[in-house]
């Protein structure tokens, strides 16, 4: 199986730099995410992970370089659920469907289908405040999937959850990713989470954010965060990450 034609990309980030005033946040980032690929962006604080996601999401424009998203507007999941509290869980999803242009008659069934996909059948009429943290993030995931975008951006979506719930949502995300054909660009500062989920881990250095190193994760699924393979690679990546952080203390 030799690959001669270039793999269609979910996003192409080419030579992207971003400055806010005098602050150089991102420096010459070049990164492709292939269709259906799962990539995690890893870095300490100040590496510009979230800035990079915002650029890909089109919420901000790069100072130089280009960001291409061939599949149209990417979906984005935040650390907080960002669901609209004036709508029910189902209606939140339907709003995404409506804004994507789906006819009204098809929306309720599709919303139900997406709720079932995140195992929240029967939560259609639930108000956002009636859901637990984990359920809210699952509805948010369903809403993001409702955009039917080829690329799903995730900005530390599980960071605010308790460990047990996070673990379960890792499994759910892996399942949903393998069932749908969506490419995922997942930002985190949690090394094990990055290794647990991704096919490829990209380590960013801080201030300015540059790509420090990449790892292909060959560990077969299903993986668990406690697995020896996951832990082994995590140790290696953590060492590199600590090295990156130490550099900042030296001057």
């Amino acid at each position, binding site marked *: 199986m030799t690959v001669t034609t270039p793999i269609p990309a979910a996003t192409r980030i080419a030579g992207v730099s971003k400055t806010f005033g005098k602050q150089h946040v991102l420096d010459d980032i070049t990164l492709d995410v292939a269709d259906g690929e799962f990539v995690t962006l890893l870095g300490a604080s100040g590496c510009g992970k979230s800035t990079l996601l915002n650029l890909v999401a089109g919420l901000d424009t790069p100072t130089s370089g280009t960001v291409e998203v061939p599949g149209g*507007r990417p979906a984005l999941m935040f650390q907080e659920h960002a669901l609209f509290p*004036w709508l029910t869980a189902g209606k939140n999803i339907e709003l995404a469907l409506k804004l994507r242009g789906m006819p009204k008659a098809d929306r309720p069934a599709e919303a139900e289908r997406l709720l079932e996909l995140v195992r929240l059948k029967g939560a259609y009429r639930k108000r956002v*405040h009636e*859901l637990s943290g984990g*359920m809210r993030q699952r509805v948010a995931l369903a809403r993001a999937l409702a955009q039917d975008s080829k690329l799903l951006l995730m900005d530390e979506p599980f960071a605010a959850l308790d460990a047990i719930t996070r673990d379960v949502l890792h499994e759910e995300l892996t399942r949903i990713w393998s069932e749908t054909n969506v490419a995922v660009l997942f930002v985190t500062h949690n090394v094990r989470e990055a290794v647990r989920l991704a096919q490829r881990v990209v380590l960013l250095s801080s201030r300015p954010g540059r790509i420090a190193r990449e790892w292909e994760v060959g560990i077969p699924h299903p993986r668990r965060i406690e697995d020896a393979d996951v832990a082994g690679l995590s140790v290696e990546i953590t060492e590199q990450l600590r090295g990156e952080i130490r550099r900042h203390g030296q001057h």
Partner: protein
Amino acid sequence: MASTETQPKTAGAEGAEATTAPATTVPTAVETGAERAETGAERAEAAAGNDLAGLEAGLDALDTRTTDRTPLPVLLRRKALPPLVAVVLVLGLWQAAFALHLKPDYQLPSPLMVWDALAEEWYKGTILGVIWQSVSRGALGFAVALLVGTPLGLLVARVRPVRAAIGPILSGLQSLPSVAWVPAAIIWFGLTDATIYAVVLLGAVPSIANGLVAGVDRIDPLHLRAGKVLGATGLRGIRHVLLPAALPGYISGLKQGWAFSWRSLMAAELIATSPELGVGLGRLLETGRSYQDMPLVLGAILLILLVGIGIELLIFAPVERRVLRHRGLLR
């Protein structure tokens, strides 16, 4: 974790099968509680996938807070009893002051005398007309204020130069008592309905507009970003994100707007009296004063208070409570 050594993407079909399998085996596994000894392999496979669904269901059940409504008798005791006691207490003090002759009768009538004065107006058959005259004016004035104040508020909230230009004036106007406008309005419009409506509008529009501005300012920026990501930009952004998100602030602005309308209306009716303007509650109050009829004066004040409170309780409070409850901002 048996049969998935391959990468999940290449094993797309298998993966899908593995995840649908537990869903179909769940009911049987539950139903056949007695005959547990099924084929071992099948059960193990079902358990692996079932594990996650079961675990998740458990987590959801543990984390979901049940919001049961308080039963009506408890609610009445908690919400209705205290104000009732307060009213009875005030009436008691009033009656005591009357009984002690702190002031002569014509200055401090008893609660019963005020009641009689109102009853007399009732038997004359005019009182409902008087109340309606004022309420309909107040409602119409408020409706117009709503139509003017809403777009004004949106403009001030979203367009920066407009905000810089008239934002401070708008909030300053709120602290200007609208009675101050009555003389000016009389000079402009004479003793007509236009005078009264002008005063009502000048009182209510700033409140409504400011309420909307406050509501928009308090929107969680995350919701605006989420709206943008979903593709709600421009007018669709206003319709689907901005307005619903600003609703709580807007409603408290409306509430205040009504209070200001009603207040301004009474001031205008009290000062601008003319036969052509008809008899509203303000006019009733003024009539009482001119006859030195203290029971009627107190009765009219009471009616003005009751209408103001009544509209707030019957219209604004339920709407506000509903909106806040839906958002989980109220228990």
